């Protein structure tokens, strides 16, 4: 449709459309490109008092390190300030959160999609309300009990909490994916001799992979992007990347090593870039799956 109509569009409108898109892409992408570029400079360039051309040419970087690019920020963040440990923790947290969320979510989402009872409907509505809870309000309910139980500060606690916070969303999304698989399929399987669980495992899961991958991406993002839970529930030595970056800010700005934080920020952004690069289609389909089902 669009291509057929394109040549009938007035030239002025066309120019406007192209200009607008170019502007939007600049807005969307340039902050990232600028920060990635700047992370290889010294602070005097990236936060230049004289002219931002310095950041492009690396005038101060040249003066201080002898080359136009420097990895000092990365060295400082990853080695001096132990960012590698935070990265490692993030890997553990995201992998665990994603797998546990999906395991619980597929089971629950399947039950919700197949039940048809009133209580299943109310569970979904409750999940919708839970989904709207600001995470920090829940965190303020965790702290005191967690101190009492002496489980504050360690990774497993944060993982379980993130899984739970993630459940409402996961349930909704998987539930709508399961609804798109015909009920006949599991019913044939049960008549053919499967238990409900066998039907789920042998017949439904093999055709559910696209939905599971898509939902998994969003679980991953939740675990990866979280700040409220990990910042409050992890002790300093167990921090993941995002709270670690935030704790950099306080201490580093004073010592003038803000470039450590910039390098850490860029490092934490790279996996997200790669994710979008490879899973663009699934992300788009996941965003719209919720919309179609309402």
């Amino acid at each position, binding site marked *: 449709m669009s291509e057929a109509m394109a040549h009938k569009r007035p030239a002025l409108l066309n120019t406007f459309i192209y200009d607008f898109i170019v502007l939007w892409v600049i807005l969307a992408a340039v902050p990232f490109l600028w920060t990635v570029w700047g992370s290889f400079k010294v602070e005097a360039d990236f936060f230049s008092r004289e002219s931002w051309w310095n950041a492009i040419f690396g005038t101060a970087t040249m003066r201080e390190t002898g080359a136009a690019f420097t990895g000092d920020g990365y060295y400082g963040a990853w080695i001096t300030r132990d960012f590698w440990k935070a990265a490692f923790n993030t890997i553990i947290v995201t992998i665990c959160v994603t797998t546990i969320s999906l395991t619980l979510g597929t089971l629950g989402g399947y039950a919700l999609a197949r039940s048809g009872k009133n209580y299943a409907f109310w569970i979904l509505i409750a999940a919708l309300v839970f989904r709207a809870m600001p995470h920090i309000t829940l965190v303020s309910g965790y702290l005191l009990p967690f101190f009492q139980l002496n489980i504050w500060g360690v990774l497993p606690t944060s993982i379980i909490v993130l899984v739970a916070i993630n459940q409402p969303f996961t349930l909704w999304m998987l539930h709508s994916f399961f609804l798109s698989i*015909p009920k*006949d*399929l599991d019913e*044939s399987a049960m*008549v053919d*001799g499967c*238990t*409900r669980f066998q039907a789920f495992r*042998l017949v439904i899961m093999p055709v559910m992979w696209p939905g599971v991958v898509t939902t998994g991406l969003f679980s991953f993002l939740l675990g990866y992007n979280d700040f409220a839970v990990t910042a409050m529930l992890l002790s300093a030595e167990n921090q993941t990347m995002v709270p670690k970056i935030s704790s950099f800010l306080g201490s580093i700005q004073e010592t003038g090593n803000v470039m450590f934080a910039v390098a850490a920020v860029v490092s934490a952004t790279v996996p997200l870039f790669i994710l979008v690069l490879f899973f663009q289609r699934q992300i788009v389909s996941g965003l719209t799956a919720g919309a179609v089902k309402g």
Partner: protein
Amino acid sequence: MAQIRLKNVSKRWNKFVGVDNFNLDIADQEFLVLLGPSGCGKTTTMRMIAGLEEITEGEIWIGERMVNKLEPKDRDISMVFQSYGLYPNMTVYENIRFPLKVRRIPQDQHHERVMKAAAMVELEPFLERRPAALSGGQRQRVALARAIVREPNAFLMDEPLSNLDAKLRVSTRAQIKNLHHALKTTTIYVTHDQIEAMTLADRVVVMNKGLVQQVGTPMEIYDRPANTFVASFIGSPAMNLVSGSIENGVFTSDGIRIEGLPHRASGAVTLGFRAEDANLAEANGQIEAPIYTVELLGEATMLSMRVAGELVSIKVGKDYRAEIGDLARIAIPASACHIFDQSTGARIEA
């Protein structure tokens, strides 16, 4: 193989009644057809037998076992779904083999049994394909093969032919009939197509709004409908129904008068007669009315005329020609008349 018995079976969702007090004994090896209009509870009944739907009230027995609490897998039945329910990620061969695999039937029998089932429904050339690469008729046959690959107590089939085109429907219907003849497995078959019901069934159950209207052989249902619903549902065109009154074996209404009926009832009744039982009258007929339309069907001509406010259809010879508005005289033999109670709709016997 087994007999199946339904005792006072009901299904309700909140207040909505899907199936109401269903009682039936299905004999071993019988081919039973559930027939009724859309939404009358046929699928629900079948799914309760299969264990896919919880039973609100009553008991279902398969063979000597009460199965109310049994899982579908433990009822040992096989089912063919309206939309086939094939496993899209498995080949045809794996689809047919699946019931053997999950029921832990010894591996060495699998190949032989799958091939035998595939041969019965002529599927051998397609065994390595996935369901997505099959036509509707072929998918239908995979579903059948998957049902017959083991020897269950009973086959349940829910409108298995409804997704096929007219020609394929006729040939697959024949195939099902032949399979039943060969395997002699008790079969419950759901349809809303009365031709399927008439051609396949040993007995037909006619349902409406969750209630059983009549149980009988196809001939009984056609010849002696139990009430006006069955009368108007079976036959093509449906039985003509005219309300009027009867007195001393004489039925009268506006534009119609039939004498010599054997019925002793009197009062307000509904008269039923089939289009094919009426004829052109030689002299003065039981109906005399202007023709409303004339339809040429090829093998016959269908007249319709307005009698007592109803349009009635009359099947006459294929060479009959008349204009709309012409007066026609129709003879209805008293022996071909059915009398129903006007308020309950129930059949009144002679």
